[in-house]
């Protein structure tokens, strides 16, 4: 029988893979992809909890819809920034974007 715990473990695995990607990758586009993985792990967790607990409350589903919305907005904005960065610096390697590094 599939229980809530199994979905939570899958979601933890996806989130950790995303965390590794965010910390270890050098290209801004690849970091964005890892952030998408982490958002998906959160969504999976929310929906699993909402689906396994009280059927009269849908907060988990609705928050998941909002997470998808904000994720779409975030990708649009971040890719505009990446395009701008590429036009100004001819690179998307975040190790070379050190203008705001203190």
């Amino acid at each position, binding site marked *: 029988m599939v229980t*809530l715990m199994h979905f939570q473990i899958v979601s933890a695995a996806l989130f950790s893979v995303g965390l590794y990607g965010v910390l270890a990758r050098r290209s801004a586009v690849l970091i964005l992809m890892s952030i*998408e993985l982490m958002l998906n792990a959160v969504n999976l967790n929310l929906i699993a909890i909402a689906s396994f607990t009280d059927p009269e409350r849908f907060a988990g589903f609705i928050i998941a819809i909002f997470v998808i919305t904000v994720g779409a907005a975030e990708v649009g904005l971040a890719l505009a920034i990446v395009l701008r960065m590429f036009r100004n610096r001819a690179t998307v390697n975040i190790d070379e974007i050190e203008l705001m590094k203190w």
Partner: protein
Amino acid sequence: MSWFLFILLSVMAIGGGLGVVATRNVVHACLFLLFSLLAVAGLYVVLLTEFLALVQIFIYGGAIIIVLLFAIMLTRSKEYPSISDNSQWPLALVSGLALFSLLTATFVVNSSSFEEMHRVALTDLGTTLFTDWALPFEIASLVLLLALIGSIVIAKVERRR
């Protein structure tokens, strides 16, 4: 049956995620991400939420992957076919594994007794979204509008006079 589907889709989702963070080719990473997102949509179907599975396929599989591919093609850098990780990757591996073990230990120790999944009627979901959650819904539309305008302003080419 649901156990078999769960194992299959979980392996696909986590395998796709590992592909995203392990491959050297950026376009391959994008396709692995698509694979992983579609497997997560399948997991939503196992969780009896077909509506969110559809939303996932439309927005992630349709829109976000296409936008990511556009960004890859427009920022065609010479190092894209064989991009390297930065030098702190062992630290990243350790922190990823540590987070995974911590979360798994928490979930196993506090394992809940819920074993039954409930199907939520789509009409109830829509009614709740447009009554109790009406204000956050409007704010979400504002967020999307601002993101649209902001990305146009940021990416616009200004002409020198």
